[in-house]
């Protein structure tokens, strides 16, 4: 049992887990993830059953990948606890032991003096006992590795929470309209534009968020890379589309309507127009024949409305351009310029997750920095030589070697 626990907390186990995670990641990057079942049948006719059986179509949410991540977290917990205990034990002991260190480095008196000068120039603290000077600095460096592992552990856990807990929905909303969310929060889309005033692609919506308690965000611009946060909601500019628009007038009253697919606009349920499709433009060949463009890549250069006119029992397919007027008995329809609208992503995140995650990320980065660039320095210098101590002595040993090499060059050795 003790051996099993030791294995679970060992570096070897951690490395095995990392190796397995790499293996899963390679597979997950080669096989299409989260595709439709038929995709796998079509692309992997000989292997699709294996893919489904081993959950390779969604490997990053498979039970064994989650298990690997969980075990890695467990390993990191053990690593962090063991590490902090070891540091608290070793740190004072290593420092104390430096006062009785046997000199290891060969250096004459002049060289030892240069080493002292170098250590003082590096702003090392100096303590003397019994003729041995111990120079030390970067005490925080002892905790670098611990903070890295702790930060990584927190990052993995909080990433998991931040990825799987938020509720995300994608919704479209026409300018002037509002979205009402489950809890009563209202998102009103004031306007949307694809290009800014200079003609540069921009994709920006102006929205106002009204929380159930009546608090308002005021008009805010949402664009790619610039979401708007209010309460627990974060609103993203996700996509866009184009919708037709028509003004309907009857007996002096008028209303402007967005034309969605296959709408029937009528006053009596019999006579009116069946909206069929809005096309972005048309091309005319040399013979004068026109063909409608079906591409919806974004720009509606010469929009064409296609609809069926229902009048007195007859049905005629017709086309209209913005500005055209169609009269159906006492109803007058005026086709307007199409309107671009945004697709918004609405994300509801539990409070504090993102700030905590940011904290974890900072701890990890700080830990790495401390591990790599503020390695503890403990050097004992006496009249008979010097000794380098500490968990990572290579860096300071390199600096001392530089001093010794320079001295030897000076002497012409």
């Amino acid at each position, binding site marked *: 049992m003790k051996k099993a626990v030791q294995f679970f907390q060992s*570096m070897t186990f*951690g*490395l095995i887990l*990392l*190796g397995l*995670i*790499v293996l899963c*990641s*390679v597979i*997950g*990057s080669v096989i299409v*993830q989260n595709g439709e079942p038929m995709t796998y049948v079509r692309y992997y006719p000989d292997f699709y059953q294996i893919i489904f059986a081993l959950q390779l179509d969604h490997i*990053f949410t498979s039970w064994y990948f989650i298990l690997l991540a969980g075990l890695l977290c467990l390993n990191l917990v053990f690593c962090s606890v063991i590490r902090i205990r070891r540091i608290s034990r070793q740190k004072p002991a290593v420092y104390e032991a430096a006062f009785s260190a046997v000199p290891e480095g060969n250096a004459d008196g002049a060289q030892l003096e240069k080493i002292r000068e170098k250590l003082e120039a590096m702003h090392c603290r100096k303590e003397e006992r019994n003729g041995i000077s111990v120079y030390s600095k970067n005490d925080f460096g002892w905790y670098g590795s611990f903070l890295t592992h702790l930060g990584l552990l927190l*990052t993995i856990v909080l*990433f998991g929470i*931040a*990825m799987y807990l938020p509720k*995300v929905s994608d919704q479209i909303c026409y300018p002037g309209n509002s979205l009402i969310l489950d809890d009563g929060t209202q998102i009103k889309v004031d306007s949307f534009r694809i290009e800014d005033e200079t003609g*540069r*692609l*921009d*994709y920006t919506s102006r929205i106002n968020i009204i929380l159930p308690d009546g608090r308002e965000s005021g008009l805010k611009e949402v*664009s*790619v*890379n*610039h*979401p708007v946060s209010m309460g627990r909601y*974060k609103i*993203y500019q*996700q*996509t*866009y589309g184009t919708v037709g628009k028509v003004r309907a007038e009857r007996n002096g009253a008028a209303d402007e309507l967005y034309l969605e697919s296959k709408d029937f606009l009528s006053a009596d349920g019999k006579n009116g127009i069946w909206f069929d499709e809005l096309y972005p433009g048309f091309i005319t060949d040399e013979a004068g024949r026109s063909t409608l463009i079906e591409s919806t*890549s974004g720009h509606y250069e010469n929009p064409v409305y296609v609809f069926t006119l229902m009048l007195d029992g007859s049905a005629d397919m017709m086309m209209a351009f913005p500005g055209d007027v169609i009269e159906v008995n006492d109803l007058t329809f005026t086709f307007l310029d199409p309107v671009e609208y945004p697709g918004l*992503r609405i*994300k509801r995140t539990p409070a504090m997750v*993102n700030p905590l*995650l*940011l904290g974890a*990320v900072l701890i*990890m*980065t700080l830990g*790495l*920095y401390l*591990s*790599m*660039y503020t390695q503890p320095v403990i050097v004992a210098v006496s009249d008979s030589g010097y000794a380098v101590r500490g968990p990572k002595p*290579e860096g300071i040993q*390199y600096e001392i070697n*530089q001093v010794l090499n320079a001295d030897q060059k000076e002497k012409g050795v």
Partner: protein
Amino acid sequence: MLNFIFFAGLVLYFVSMFLQFAGMVFRRTAWTKIAWFMFLAGFALETVYLLARGIAAHRLPLSNQFEFASAFSWAIGALLIFCYYRLHVEWIQSVGIAATFLILSYAALQPMEITELMPALRSSWFGFHIGSAAISYAAFMLAGGIGVRYIIVQKKNSADSSLEQMDYFIYRLIALGILMLTITILSGAIWAEEAWSSFWTWDPKEVWALITWIIYAVYLHLRLNRKRRGAFLAWYAILSVPVVLFTFIGVNTIMPGLHSYGMIEAVSHFM
């Protein structure tokens, strides 16, 4: 004019690499010194080129394969010069010049037009995320190059005094690389949450950045175990370079995803 500066720098790198190699083979110190100064001249030209391109584009020149490869090559050059002058290691030029030239040659094969930055890339994270990736890849590349030199020197003389220094330099460069790659991944995750609403999407680029990170994290752990040093870790550093190059080139070429900004499909997928 801009292209002339770029190709002049590339030619200087090539001649420098050739002279450096010839100087080593024929043991002519003067040739390697000339090679070094030619390399410095090439580096100065590439610096001017990147600055001028940035000014012309009104942004950091890091937005596509050509610009990233140029920055990657520039970062190798900068690290090389730092190691040469600050850490006094002259032997590093033998591997660094070749690495700088090879990556810049790859850049030369890419489309070079200056294009407008697409909305998805207009973010304050842009320079931070991509710049740290360039430094990280450069450090890994240079570490691999030193690994090659380690193996060659060790075959000639296993007691060579520079072996320990090379082993230490591989470690330090990988330490720098993993720190920068961590910054790349974490800043990318924060950026992704701003742009795509999710910190992590398991996009191929993200997955391979993670794979690269893990591979080098394993290196650092293996090195902690003092039994694994020397040739083993030098080979490890060498064999990890293809993973870095695959993350940079391979993923963009054969695994389209959210990071494939050079491709029209990716734009329509995003918007």
